[in-house]
């Protein structure tokens, strides 16, 4: 059937005169159906053209207003932190659409509608819509509410709510129209989510290139500078040796910077595969400790596992790298011989406020409670201000010189990417990394992992609809 072909109705005898084919009620119904279909099509065009969340919310609520004839239209979306629907946009009595994130008038109703398998209708005086009056600037509360769930796959993303002041029931056609709009909203939200994720990925790539170019220039400056000085000047042997050693140090740093940048690029672009297998964390901890065995100057590393730490499914190599990075940092920022402890527990070892100080973007995230592992040191510690920045790209602790402090004075500075990479690897396992620290007293870096890593999309952590605002 071509796009413009008229619909066929097989139960109608085509030889009957046109005027007698349908009883008049059916004809009216057909005209209405055609009008609704056209209206739904037009709203779909506008909904899919929306380029920002506010634009989308506004278009959706206007469509509800014009198609279903209501006195109140509201769009609720599920909030990441607690999975509750919160009102993102509201339109009452033909006024402008109000945006925000509020426990709005019909929140209880939206909550119920989100869980209902079909569009939910309630009529006053229903306890679900009590308290509405106060929120509507003194206007009378709707007597009739209809909520159509916005779903994607099996997951509830939100609810589209329509309300009427009169107790006029919604017709089956209006219920189906609202559900149609809710379905269109779901697709449009998905489209915006993908666009936002792509824009974010582009921004991060740009940031990475910009920072990487800055970081590469620093060792290059030393290489070019000292080598040109060596070529142009005659200096005594000791100075010469010192300059060559600086050249060597910076070239090693350049090499590690480049390989870490490549690793990070792979992680950022999602080109990472986890080789999942049953993992015993104690084996990993013992292996990591063995890496520093025989290094007499190094700190004393002990392992303390609480009872009941379960096996989990994870990538052994990547977890080893994460733990080795944490232990290496602990050693580098502790006085020689200072004790370092690797701890593990079948619960989160972080304090309740710590997760909010952790990696950017993890604010409010629920800590996966499969198993957690932490590395405690009694080193120089990290100031409160810097704790929020330790996971940022190219962050390095300020004190790195031979000033008598516990900084790694005798080795080339790291690229400042180790912790960022470690955090990303933990996140790829569905986990969360955190830090607790007290200046001059020591730091604890740890991570929590679920027993089974979640399935991943191509782009790291899945974004929920609320994240697009």
């Amino acid at each position: 059937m071509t796009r413009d072909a008229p619909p066929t109705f097989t139960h109608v005898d085509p030889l009957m005169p046109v005027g007698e084919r349908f009883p008049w009620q059916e004809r009216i119904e057909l005209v209405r159906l055609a009008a609704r279909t056209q209206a739904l099509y037009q709203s779909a065009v506008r909904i899919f053209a929306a380029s920002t969340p506010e634009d989308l919310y506004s278009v959706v609520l206007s469509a509800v207003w014009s198609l279903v004839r209501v006195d109140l239209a509201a769009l609720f979306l599920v909030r990441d932190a607690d999975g509750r629907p919160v009102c993102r946009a509201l339109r009452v009595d033909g006024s402008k659409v109000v945006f925000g994130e509020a426990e709005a008038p019909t929140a209880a109703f939206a909550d119920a509608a989100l869980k209902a398998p079909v569009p939910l209708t309630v009529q006053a005086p229903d306890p679900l819509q009590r308290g509405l009056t106060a929120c509507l600037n003194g206007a009378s509360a709707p007597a009739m509410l209809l909520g159509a769930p916005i779903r994607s796959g099996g997951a509830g993303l939100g609810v589209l709510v329509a309300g009427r002041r009169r107790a006029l029931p919604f017709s089956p056609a209006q219920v189906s129209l609202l559900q149609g709009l809710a379905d269109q909203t779901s697709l449009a939200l998905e489209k915006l989510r993908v666009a936002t994720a792509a824009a974010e990925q582009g921004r991060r790539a740009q940031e990475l290139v910009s920072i990487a170019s800055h970081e590469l220039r620093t060792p290059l400056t030393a290489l070019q500078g000292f080598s040109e000085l060596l070529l142009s000047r005659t200096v005594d042997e000791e100075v010469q040796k010192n300059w060559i050693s600086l050249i060597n140090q910076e070239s090693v740093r350049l090499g590690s910077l480049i390989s870490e940048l490549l690793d990070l690029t792979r992680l950022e672009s999602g080109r990472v595969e986890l080789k999942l297998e049953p993992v015993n964390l104690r084996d990993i901890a013992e292996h990591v400790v063995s890496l520093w065995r025989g290094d007499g100057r190094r700190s004393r590393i002990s392992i303390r596992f609480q009872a009941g730490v379960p096996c989990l499914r994870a990538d052994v190599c990547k977890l080893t790298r994460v733990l080795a990075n944490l232990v290496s940092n602990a050693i580098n920022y502790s006085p020689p011989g200072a004790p370092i402890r690797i701890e593990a527990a079948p619960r989160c070892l972080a304090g309740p406020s710590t997760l909010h100080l952790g990696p950017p973007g993890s604010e409010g995230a629920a800590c996966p409670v499969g198993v957690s592992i932490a590395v405690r040191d009694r080193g120089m510690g990290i100031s409160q201000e810097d704790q929020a920045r330790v996971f940022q790209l190219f962050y390095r602790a300020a004190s790195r010189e031979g000033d008598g402090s516990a900084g790694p004075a005798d080795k080339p500075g790291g690229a400042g990417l180790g912790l960022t990479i470690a955090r990303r690897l933990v996140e790829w396992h569905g986990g969360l990394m955190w830090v607790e620290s007290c200046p001059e007293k020591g730091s604890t870096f740890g991570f929590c992992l679920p027993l089974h890593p979640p399935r991943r999309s191509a782009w790291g952590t899945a974004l929920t609809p609320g994240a697009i605002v």
Partner: protein
Amino acid sequence: MKTVLVADDEPTIRALVNAILDGSGVRTLEAADGSEALDMARRYQPDLVLLDVVMPRMDGFTVCQRMKAEKSMARTPVLLLTALGQESDHQRALRAGAEGVVQKPFSPAVLRATVEGLLNGDQKD
């Protein structure tokens, strides 16, 4: 003897600048972050300040702006050493009041000539 303040959070770069200026008849002072650089510029009133752009606690642009806003340091020439590499960063450096910008990585001969030029220009005033 003229005094040059070198501010860079990378000890290797400070060592390099020291080595480059060695023998040119200037005394060098070192600062490891922006805040320290501003303090030292106030205290020692150097004849020239070399500032890295990306430094902890205060970036080079801000140090330069603060210096130019203070009467005692407003006429001290500032040379920004930038690894950012964007044209807009050069413009930003000049807007902050810097007398010159040198892009990392730099040739020692170029840096030395620029430093000597700025110190001599100051002398002519």
